[in-house]
Structure formats: structure tokens, C-alpha cells
């Protein structure tokens, strides 16, 4: 079972132009900045927005092909869609929300409710069956939405920001349960998210959308090792520069040069983990390589580490301990010296 899609579509000012391939049992995570077209892409694949050009096939069956004037409406595509904020029907009980798809597909009321009840039990929320959705917590609503989507036994499962509506405390547990539920679903799984942790935890493969186009595609580890855009570098927490490789150094497109252990000739990316960036109050003595000065543009605390954004001849983000912030008395707007080791910079062809 597999999904193959060549998508050309317009929605407002966005021009979507993306190829998506996903196999059964695989979780493909779509990431990208706001307005990049992630949700639009899901809506197009689900048949809620029309293709202007291209083709969507599932297991060889053509779902949509404007050139051949073929277009299956959403209700005939066998897609389980978990919307952002879940969009549970407020006028139906939890049980009838989950039974809705089965009823729509012609099941008798009793049978649909019996199956829906089983889904609620599987998700551990059977005690809410007769309640209205508004009494549910975010995590419970997410499970109902997932049960509702899965109850029709779809071939495709789409989740749009499945954890965004949850508070941080609930997120870790719901994420774990979501991963388990995804693992039990043997069809094609597409997940949209803007949260790096969620993407890395759920993805077999990550597809980066930027401005309607696929900017990069790969496994989470490929992406974290070799990001190919500033968005994805920031997403995985790396510094990224583009430039020309000159053997032992890289001439950066943004100006300046960086010494590295090895750089192939031609267009390259240079990536560096913020932890490999050292900060000093005055020019470092000894090794003169890869040292420059800049101004502290921002300090952000994150999980026991502080990310320091330095603007200068080469903009860079450093990650230091809170103790180091105090010791160096780092304050926004002040001048600071930056040093990086040539061996820590990862260089790969663009």
C-alpha cells in the first residue's frame, strides 16, 4: 500500500508544488514554517481542495487527476483526518462522534455504536461515551478524534498538529500514546507539525515544506546531520551557513571565511552545533583560527541550557550553561568574542 502524489494547487497566495510519497506503515512528518502549505497539502490530498495539476494515487488507484478529469470526493477517499483542534461535532455525544463515519458508510445504528464503543475502550476513554465533547480535556479530545478517524478503517491517516492544542504538561504522555496508536495503524500516516520534538519522535521520514515547495526530505537523523535550509537548521537546532568549499576553508556567502578540517570544492553547506561555539569576554589567546567578535542579540533559556544569538561578521548561535551566562555576565547588546574549532564544522555539498 502506498500513496503517490504530485501536487500542484493554489490556495490564496500560496502556490503548492510538492511531490509526496509514503508507504504503508510509514509515518511521514510534514514540517515547515507557518504558511508553508502543510495543512493545505493535507487538505488537497484529502480532496477538500482541488488539484490544479498533478495526480494523486493510492495503491495504483487514481484518486485525482485533473488532466483525466478524475476527482474522487473526500467521502470516497478512505482517509482518516484528525484536524487541528480536533473539530469534534459539538451536538453529538462522544460515542456518536466516533460512530459517525460508520453510520455514514451505511452501518446500522447498533452496529456502529458497538464498534465505536470498542474504539473508545481501546483508547481508554469509554467512560466518556455519553458525554458531549465540550467536557473533554485536550488529551481526551485528541483520543476521540483519533478514534473517530480510525473507526472507518481508512487506508490513509492524516493528523494536523495533533498535539498543538495540548498544554505542555499533557503533551509528553499524549505523544507517547499517539506514537503507539500510529504504530498499530498499518496504512499510510501523514503528520503535520511545527514542533521539532514531535517531528523527531514520530517520523520515519521528514518532509520539509517551505513556501509551498519541498525544501528537504529525509530521515530525522539525515536532517539533523545535514540540514539544507536555515529553517530546518533552526528546527534541528544547528547553525547553518552556505558558501564555497576551498579545501581547508569555506568562503561564506554572507561574507567571511571559516577554517574547516575538510571542505569539498564547490557549493557547500557548513553546519555547526551551538554547543561547539565558545564565547569569551576578550580575544582568545593562543589559537587564532575562527575567532571573531559580535554583539549579543538575544538570550533564550531552554531545558537547562541558554542559547545565545550573536550578530557580527558571521552570525551564530551558541549554547552555554546558565552558569557560563553568569560567569561571563552575558547581557544583550554587549560585545562578545566567538571562537569555533575547525574540526567541529560539518561540511557537505549543497
Amino acid at each position: 500500500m502506498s500513496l503517490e502524489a504530485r501536487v500542484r494547487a493554489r490556495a490564496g497566495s500560496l502556490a503548492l508544488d510538492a511531490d509526496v510519497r509514503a508507504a504503508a506503515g510509514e509515518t511521514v512528518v510534514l514540517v515547515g514554517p507557518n504558511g508553508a502549505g502543510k495543512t493545505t497539502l493535507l487538505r488537497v490530498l484529502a480532496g477538500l481542495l482541488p488539484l490544479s495539476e498533478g495526480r494523486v494515487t493510492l495503491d495504483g488507484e487514481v484518486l485525482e487527476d485533473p488532466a483525466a478529469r478524475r476527482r474522487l470526493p473526500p467521502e470516497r477517499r478512505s482517509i482518516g483526518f484528525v484536524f487541528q483542534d480536533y473539530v469534534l461535532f459539538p451536538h453529538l455525544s462522544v460515542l456518536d462522534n466516533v460512530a459517525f463515519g460508520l453510520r455514514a458508510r451505511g452501518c446500522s445504528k447498533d452496529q456502529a455504536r458497538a464498534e465505536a464503543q470498542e474504539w473508545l475502550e481501546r483508547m481508554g476513554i469509554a467512560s466518556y461515551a455519553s458525554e458531549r465533547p465540550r467536557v473533554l480535556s485536550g488529551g481526551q479530545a485528541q483520543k476521540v478524534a483519533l478514534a473517530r478517524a480510525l473507526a472507518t478503517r481508512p487506508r490513509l491517516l492524516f493528523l494536523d498538529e495533533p498535539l498543538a492544542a495540548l498544554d505542555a504538561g499533557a503533551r509528553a504522555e499524549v505523544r507517547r500514546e499517539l506514537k503507539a496508536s500510529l504504530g498499530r495503524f498499518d496504512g499510510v500516516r501523514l503528520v503535520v507539525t511545527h514542533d521539532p520534538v514531535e517531528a523527531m519522535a514520530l517520523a520515519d521520514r521528514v518532509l520539509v515544506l517551505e513556501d509551498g515547495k519541498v525544501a528537504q526530505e529525509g530521515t530525522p537523523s539525515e536532517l539533523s546531520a545535514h540540514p539544507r535550509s536555515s529553517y530546518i537548521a533552526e528546527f534541528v537546532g544547528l547553525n547553518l551557513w552556505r558558501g564555497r568549499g576551498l579545501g581547508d576553508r569555506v568562503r561564506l556567502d554572507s561574507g567571511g571565511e571559516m577554517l574547516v578540517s575538510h571542505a569539498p570544492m564547490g557549493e557547500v553547506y557548513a553546519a555547526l552545533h551551538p554547543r561547539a561555539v565558545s564565547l569569551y569576554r576578550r580575544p582568545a589567546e593562543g589559537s587564532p583560527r575562527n575567532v571573531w567578535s559580535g554583539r549579543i542579540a538575544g538570550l533564550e533559556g531552554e531545558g537547562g541550557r541558554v542559547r545565545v544569538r550573536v550578530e557580527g561578521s558571521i552570525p551564530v548561535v551558541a549554547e552555554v550553561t546558565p552558569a557560563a551566562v553568569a560567569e561571563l555576565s552575558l547581557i544583550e547588546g554587549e560585545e562578545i568574542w566567538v571562537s569555533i574549532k575547525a574540526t567541529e564544522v560539518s561540511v557537505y555539498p549543497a
Partner: protein
Amino acid sequence: MRRPPRALVLLAALAASFFAVPLAALAWRAPWASLPEVLTTEVVGSALRISLVSSLAASALSAFLGLPLAWVLARVPFPGRSVLRALVTLPLVLPPVVGGVALLLALGRLGLVGRALESFFGVTLFGTLPGVIVAETFVAMPFLVLTVEGALKGLDPRYEDAAATLGASRGLVFWKITLPLAAPSVAAGAVLAWARALGEFGATITFAGNLPGETQTMPIAVYTALLRDVDAAIVLSLVLVAVSLLVLVTLRERWTPQA
């Protein structure tokens, strides 16, 4: 809070009494002793019956035709949509008498459509209860259409999307999702339309006439009675006031969220 300016309070009190005094006068002048007697006279009884039947029918007809119209206005983009919306809104601001004249020219015996209605189907609207219903629907339906259209526009379209991805056809989506979610405003719109139809005078008397027992509704009966029997007019007015108050209370407590 600081003491409000005296001038404002005085003007507000004046405005309040402007609404209160006429009602009080009505109650004060009412022939309370002969009330049951007047209420059970033939003219009052038939006017009450005609009013209730025609206004309920007009409200139902407004919902039956107005709901699809509201849905089209809210959901289907097409050129001329704003023109159509203006057309629907027109009866709200049009003097009802003018509406009656226009209806007469369209559906009257010699009207554009009325002539065909009469010669092919033998249907005459002037001087009949159906004529009253048509006139009342003309002025009442806009209330329902605008109320429901507003509600449909405010509805998150993703409810309908979700239902579609779950396998519901467009018809099923409308019946099981759109309509139930819009039901409170359909009900509110129907009640507004009903209240408007109940109070209808100008279009009805122009289009359907003033025949006691046939087309004489309560407001028309009030007007007619005023010319010869003031007590009857007052009693009929009191009945209409009571009905209006009932509508107001029902609307507030059932169909609108409490402020």
C-alpha cells in the same frame, strides 16, 4: 462608579417612559370587566384564528424556503451574490404597503404570475387565507434568511470537512452536521419571522384585503375596530401585546446566550 450626568439620566428616563406610558395607557383604558365577552365575539375569534394560522404558516414557509436561500448565500460563491442579498434584505426596509402593491402586480388576479395561476390552476390569492400567508411570508422571510445566513457563516467549515472525510455525502453533511449546528439560529429566525408575520398589516391588507373571517388578521381587526368600537380595539391590542411579550421572553431564555 461615578454618578452619571443628570442630563443623560433625564433623557434616558424620558425614553423609557416613551415606551412604558403607551402600554400603561392600554392597560388603564382596557375594559377589564367585559374582557371575556369581547374576546369570545365572532370577529375577535376569527381574527385570532386567522392570525395564528397565517403567521405560523408564514413562519414555516419562511423556514422551508429561507433555509436553502440562506445556505446558498452563505456557502456558494457566485456573481451577483451581494445583489441577491440586497434583494432579500429589501422587504426589511421597504414600506409594507409598497410590498403589498408589488405583490398585487405580481401575484394578483391581473398580475404577472397571478394571471397564469388563475387561468391554469384556478388559484386566486386575493381575499383568501393563502394570500395572507404569501403577504406575511414576503415581509417575514428576510428575518429568517439573514439570521440563518449569519449563523452559517460563523460556523467553522471544518465540521463539514470532517464529516466529508468520514464518508458523509454532501446531503448527509447538511442534514446531520450543518442543520443541527445551525438549529438554534433557525429556531430564532423562525420566531422572529413569526413575530413579524403576526404583526403584519400593510402588505396583508393591500394584497389580501380586509374580509372578516377570511383575511382579517388581528392587526387589521384592531385597525377596523378602532373606527367604530374602541373597546374591541383595545382588547385585541392587549392580546397582541401579550403574545409579543411571550415571544420576547422565549427568545431571550431559549435561543440567545445570556449576556
